[in-house]
């Protein structure tokens, strides 16, 4: 049915897919698994005509296809039910299903026919929804039904689902699985991407493993154990550069205590302690709410319950301003939207956390800011330390160093890194690891949220594994393996 032959795809600096070849049979439910960055999304994007330039070939029903656009793929019968569902809330269910292909009568949309067609499909899915319903009050699961109906409307032969259960209730998941089995019975091929191994073992026939852009094999679900599957997913050497180059330096002094912290309804009752000089890793899958926890500690989001203690004293932090005044700094995940200001130069970005320090004789001294920029620029090994250089024009890694420098300029001694090396090239990664080590060597304390397991394993003194808004396991650095972290992150027992 689908045959990938020697498919490779490169992005600047990374090989996202490397000579991937495999087949999927008609009417098969095939799971696609791998770590973040293994190449699953890239492969699906090629199949769906999102990435139009790649090496190798894709055949469907023995015929080579090379889609020029997502539209091409849809018209050929390749549909996707997306993580972020692509529907228009202002339109009705039927209008969404038929969007762009509405039946017409002359110049006008033939609404009778439109609803008739859409309802016929909804009936096929045994769905209570009606074409005339408004999209506004539908649950995540119902929205997914609409997406699936839309795929059927386009006479899809292949439907891919990327983390479809991430926001569904248990009931809705059950319903989704029934529908997927019906689709399969109708000869539709399903590609199913999920991090949740339970679902894979319950639902799919076969599972294909990708790792670092390479094809690792396809296995029948009945013939492989959970442990073996995880091993195939992560079985590479831990990257050599994410290792501690200095002696560990954590002490017994607790600098930050978090007790039953909650931000309803996102997460609830998170408790942990951070020690002076420690690098505390936060591991978990995308969506496990690690970012939400650290944002609440810093004051970026309001907590709804729980207590935060700084060096044993209870504090109330309800804004980043208060977070900073208690010595907490956050280097956020989204550099462009949250990390630096695109209209400012290096000197101004680096001074933003601590402008009062640059006041001389009552006024902000630009000379003092420039000096600060040059000093910190050297400390973080910024490639362009020119204070007047616009931060926006730097590479991702260097922008990250500017954001880090901004916090070094402040008095913060509890630094939270959220995905510190996201979108950062290999060389800069190593430098950022070195800088984090410098921080703890100076007696500061670090929380590091990361989805890159080698980074978590290589850098952390201790790791908290989160799953669905809860800390499910604490691991000491001596017990860290990728298999073990994934095991807990994927929601295995508590």
């Amino acid at each position, binding site marked *: 049915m689908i045959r990938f032959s020697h498919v490779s795809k490169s992005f600047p600096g990374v090989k996202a897919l490397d000579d991937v070849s495999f087949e999927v049979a008609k009417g098969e439910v095939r799971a696609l698994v791998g770590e973040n960055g293994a190449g699953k999304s890239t492969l699906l994007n090629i199949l769906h005509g999102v990435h139009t330039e790649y090496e190798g070939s894709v055949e469907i029903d023995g015929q080579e296809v090379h889609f020029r656009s997502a539209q091409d793929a849809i018209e050929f019968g390749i549909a996707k039910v997306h993580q972020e569902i692509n529907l228009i809330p202002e339109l009705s269910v039927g209008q969404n299903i038929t969007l762009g292909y509405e039946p017409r009568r002359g110049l006008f949309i033939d609404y009778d026919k439109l609803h008739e067609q859409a309802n016929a499909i909804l009936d096929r899915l045994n769905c209570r929804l009606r074409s005339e319903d408004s999209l506004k009050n539908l649950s995540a699961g119902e929205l997914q039904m609409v997406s699936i109906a839309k795929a059927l409307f386009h006479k899809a032969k292949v439907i891919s689902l990327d983390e479809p259960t991430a926001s569904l209730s248990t009931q809705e998941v059950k319903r989704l699985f029934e529908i997927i089995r019906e689709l399969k019975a109708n000869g539709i091929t399903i590609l199913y991407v999920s991090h949740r191994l339970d679902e894979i073992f319950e639902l799919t026939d076969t599972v294909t493993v990708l790792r670092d852009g390479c094809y690792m094999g396809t296995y029948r679900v009945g013939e492989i154990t959970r442990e073996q599957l995880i091993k195939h997913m992560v079985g590479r050497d831990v990257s050599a550069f994410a290792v501690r180059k200095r002696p560990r330096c954590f002490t017994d002094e607790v600098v930050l205590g978090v007790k039953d912290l909650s931000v309803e309804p996102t997460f609830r009752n998170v408790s942990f302690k951070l020690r002076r000089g420690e690098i505390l890793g936060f591991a978990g899958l995308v969506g496990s709410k690690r970012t939400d926890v650290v944002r609440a500690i810093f004051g*970026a989001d309001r907590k709804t319950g729980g207590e935060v203690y700084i060096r044993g004293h209870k504090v109330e932090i309800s804004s*980043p301003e208060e977070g900073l005044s208690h010595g907490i700094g956050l280097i956020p995940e989204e550099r462009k939207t949250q990390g630096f200001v695109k209209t400012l130069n290096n000197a101004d970005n680096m001074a933003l956390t601590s402008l009062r320090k640059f006041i001389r004789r009552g006024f902000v001294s630009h000379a003092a800011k420039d000096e600060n920029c040059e000093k910190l620029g050297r400390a973080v090994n910024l490639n362009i330390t020119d204070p*007047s250089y616009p931060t926006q*024009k730097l590479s991702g890694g260097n922008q990250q160093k500017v954001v880090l420098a901004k916090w070094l300029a402040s008095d913060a001694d509890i630094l939270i890194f959220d995905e510190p090396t996201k979108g950062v090239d290999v060389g800069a990664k190593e430098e950022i690891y070195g800088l984090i080590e410098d921080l703890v060597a100076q007696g500061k304390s670090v929380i590091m949220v990361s989805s890159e397991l080698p980074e978590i394993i290589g850098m952390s003194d201790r790791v908290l594994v989160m799953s669905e808004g809860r800390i499910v396991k604490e691991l000491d650095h001596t017990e860290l393996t990728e298999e073990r972290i994934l095991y807990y992150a994927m929601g295995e027992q508590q």
Partner: protein
Amino acid sequence: MSKAKRRRGAFREMGIVIALAVLFAIFTALDLSFISIYNVLDIIKHSTINGLLAIGITFAILTGGNDLSIGSIFAVVIVVTGKILVAGVHSVLASLIGIAVGFLLGLVNGTLVAKLKLQPFVATLGAMSMYRGVAYVITGGWPVLKIPKEFRQMIEGTVFSYVPKSIFLLIGFAIICHIVLKYTPFGSYVYAMGGNEEATRLSGVNVDKHKILAYGMVGIGAALAGLVMLARLGTGEPTAGQGYELDAIAAAAIGGASLAGGKGTVIGSFLGAILLSTLKVGLIVTGVDTFYQYIATGIIIVLAAYFEYLQSKLYSKSLIAD
């Protein structure tokens, strides 16, 4: 020090100065008498009210917002100050009260934008109507007449027999605002939040507080402009200042302020106001029909926007070449 930034900022302001020089050359070619000290003073005098408004509104524009209510704040300040002057309050005290009223109305705008998270355009559109209504209510729709001479002398009197004192008010306000924006943490935060409000907030900056204050500065600019108007006319009209917000925005835009926020200077907005006045005075002096003023003003605004675009493209190129 900030070489590239200076180069860039200076480039922009040089651009307006060159445009001013070109306008002067054209008007002088059309009418030799144009280039005289009296005309230059006339132009500055003509630009005083718009200049004060433009400098004030620059604060809101820099935060990424705007303020459509300045014409109405202007009117409220005029009628309030007028009323208390007529009631016999001392000129200086009355002026200070007028400024305080403008500042407070600005703070109200800032609060609507920062705390209620309303879009600045909509919030100040509402404020525009509310404050205008307040101005009418205060006077019952009638103008405030017989503004005392002392007050008029204090603001509109001349020194050196021809230079109106209000010019110094404009220049003084410009200098103070320039210093505030460039050399205080508040000024830095105004620029930063206009470029990226969330990143600024996550740097531990109290964004709301500084945003409210920025709108307060807009109110002060409108109040000062109102005092000048009151002194000039000698009557306080509740209808005064309608449409002035657009001239002020135009001046700021010509001066290089980006309506997206984060970019712009006091000097730019000041020069923008001067440029608009030069155009108007020049067209009057050379006897061009007033209707053409609108066309000319529009062309200048569009040209300035295009110039801005070209300049940012050039700037990007120069960085890559580095």
